[in-house]
């Protein structure tokens, strides 16, 4: 791995006809592959991962620039009227991504419509966490797809130009780097980061805006909403179960929901209408509950 190539700003037009590709472009600190719209980064590579450390995720630095002059002979925008980042609205969109929201906030800060050429936002970070860690201290690569839709100010006699762009950001693991005890502070921190943050505390589900079934699973809120708390599912409450019963996974609705081991009236498996969690993660949740659901420290058997 090249250790310390300096970051160079690269302009990524984002695809579509060249004659319309200038209303909005991406400006990144990492080079896309062969002039395309995809950036592939190895976790910790300082040339593309802005946090520069092997930490289980790649942080891509992305700006959006309006009315780019990089290919002025093919496309000239008289100014941008509006640039919309997809999945940036915290309104129950299951694909809502706070990083896209942060980018949209920066676009809003441009106060469009504006006629200036090469008008760029300040830099935002789009963090792509690796999938994992899985058994054997392995992680898999992961990807986020950033989409924008931009409309220019009218050009006399032509009208407005619309420009839809895509930037694919892929993170691949560094060798021998996916060790849970370096990525997380303890078992519960691992469950928060690897289960709740990725599969539960999502817009429209157990996030602060929605709190489905009265359950909030975001950082700082999740544990006290689980441990010793009676579930809103009546059938489970009637059985005397808790969301998490310390020391007893069998009477913990969280574990039953994740494992899919549900009787009548106990509702659907979680995550709802998504692929079931890998069995290894469900096992980690079971071990954590059976060990008393501690807030800190590593429960034996959950470190890898």
């Amino acid at each position: 791995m090249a250790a310390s190539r300096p970051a160079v700003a690269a302009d990524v037009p984002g695809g579509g006809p060249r004659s319309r590709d200038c209303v909005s472009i991406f400006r990144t600190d990492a080079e896309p592959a062969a002039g395309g719209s995809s950036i592939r980064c190895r976790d910790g590579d300082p040339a593309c991962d802005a946090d520069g450390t092997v930490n289980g995720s790649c942080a891509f630095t992305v700006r959006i620039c309006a009315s780019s002059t990089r290919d002025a002979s093919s496309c000239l925008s008289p100014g941008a009227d509006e640039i919309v980042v997809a999945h940036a609205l915290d309104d129950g969109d299951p694909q809502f991504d706070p990083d896209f929201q942060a980018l949209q906030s920066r676009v809003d800060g441009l106060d469009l419509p504006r006629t200036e050429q090469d008008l760029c936002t300040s830099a935002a970070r789009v963090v792509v966490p690796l999938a994992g860690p899985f058994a054997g201290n392995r992680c898999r690569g992961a990807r986020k797809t950033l989409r924008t839709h931009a409309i220019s100010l009218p050009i006399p006699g032509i009208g407005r130009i619309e420009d839809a762009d895509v930037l694919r950001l892929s993170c691949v693991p560094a060798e021998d780097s996916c060790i849970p005890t370096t990525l997380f502070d303890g078992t519960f921190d691992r469950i928060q980061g690897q289960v709740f943050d990725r599969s539960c505390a999502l817009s429209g589900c157990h996030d602060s805006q929605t709190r489905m079934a009265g359950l909030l699973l975001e950082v700082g809120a999740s544990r006290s909403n689980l441990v010793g708390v009676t579930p809103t599912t009546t059938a489970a409450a009637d059985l005397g179960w808790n969301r998490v019963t310390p020391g007893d996974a069998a009477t913990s609705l969280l574990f039953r929901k994740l494992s899919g081991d549900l009787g009548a009236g106990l509702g659907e498996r979680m995550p709802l209408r998504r692929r079931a969690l890998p069995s290894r993660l469900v096992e980690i949740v079971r071990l954590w509950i059976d060990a008393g659901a501690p807030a800190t420290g590593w429960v034996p058997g959950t470190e890898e």
Partner: protein
Amino acid sequence: MDRRRFLSRTGWLTAGALLGPGLFSRPLVRGALAAQGDRYLVSLVLDGGNDGLNTIVPMDDGDGSLRSDYEAARLGGTGGLRLAVDGPNPLLPLSVAGLAGRDPNTGAELGMHPGLAGIVPGVIEASGDPGFGGLHALWAAGKVAVVQGCGFPDYNLSHDEARRVFHTANPRGVSALATSGWLGRTLARPAAGFGATDVPGLNFRDAVAGEFRQHATAVAAARRLSDFTMPKDVSAYSSDNAAKLAAIEALYAAQSSRPGPWRELGDAGTATFRCMDVFPAASKLYLADRAAWSAGYDKMGLGTGRDLREVAKAIYARESGDERVQAFAFRVDNGGYDTHSDQGGADPAGQHWALHAELGASLKHFFDDLADMGSALDRRVTVLVWSEFSRRVRQNDSGTDHGSQGPMFVVGGGVNGGVVGNHPNIASSDLASDGNTRYRQGTHDFRSTDVRDVYGTLLVQWLGVPAAAVIDPATGMLRLDDGPPDERWTVANFDLRRAVDGAPLFAA
């Protein structure tokens, strides 16, 4: 032209009753303007949920543990949001010459987010730059009340629900108050004397904001005063544009004597035409007379600054003697505060810093502009800065999730600057199960400031609304609700005072 564009050109209006020519010959309107003392109110929202804990920040523990609790919840290092007491970009202490900046309950010294001081790298850096010094300069001049711990019973983590409560001042959902806003009810009060085609409120956004909603008078919404123009007919028959407009205006006017929705439509149309008569001209007047100040807003290049310039234009036209401008209540939005990720701490390139820098610099330049207009205008305009909720006490990887009570700012030369109300208790042992601070009333040490107390104080002390009218069961703007006895509202609640010496929120 799509619907959104059409509406943003022509304004979106709520409407009501009678059309009357010779507006200011009407004694009722004259009386209303005199009663509120030619004072102005701007509602400025930090939309998305401002992180209050990183806005007004404990700098030490005082007699409690606020700073220690803060440092436990807000981390240092990469992605950490902790604001430091010293080192690069430190917090700015509220204790400055002549002003006490301590939390009244714990005695902790309070500091202001450094970005609020209005320094925007590359834009506002030198003391001569417009907006330099930001909110901290206004604070040091005694023009800012920091009202801590503002919220409502049973806080709500949904943006829409929390906004609804802030708009209606109706946390318990009393049906009589559910469809109108607290400022709207003020404008619609019969004693205010505004008719259905009068426009006492202006919102610089795409639609009328919730706190202005009502059905007795008109509130106009547009991004810019110059947007109040009808799209021009550019066809072969463009020479008769004036006649076409006159015909449309007559059509609207004719509906005002018809019942129900026809009248509403007619009144809204007539009010829109009135806006078209008045506001583009007001904009031109300001740009011609105050070009240097206008250039200052452009130099800052900040959206909130540009919106506040529209407020300045309306005020300037009215103060210049254009009696057709009735607007005295305004709404301005500063969005982007929903900082779930990549919030940024003390880094000037960070998201929260940029938002705060925009707010601070924009307010500073706006009040400098007003002061320069003369007629003591900087003392006759008050800006209420609010947000639908604060954010989770404990940060996530690089941001914060939705929270509960947070600070509001009351800004203006008429304000007795200082700290009002208590900082919420952020000790992890005292947080609610969702990790947020608790709303409290009664004699609790960490008693919260109810948002209705803030509104009531503004209405009574600033806009001169009789206190009894604020809670009057029939016409009340903030009515008694069915809460527990210590949460019921009385006239005495509408009297927020500076903690250190008990001075009222507004100077006499």
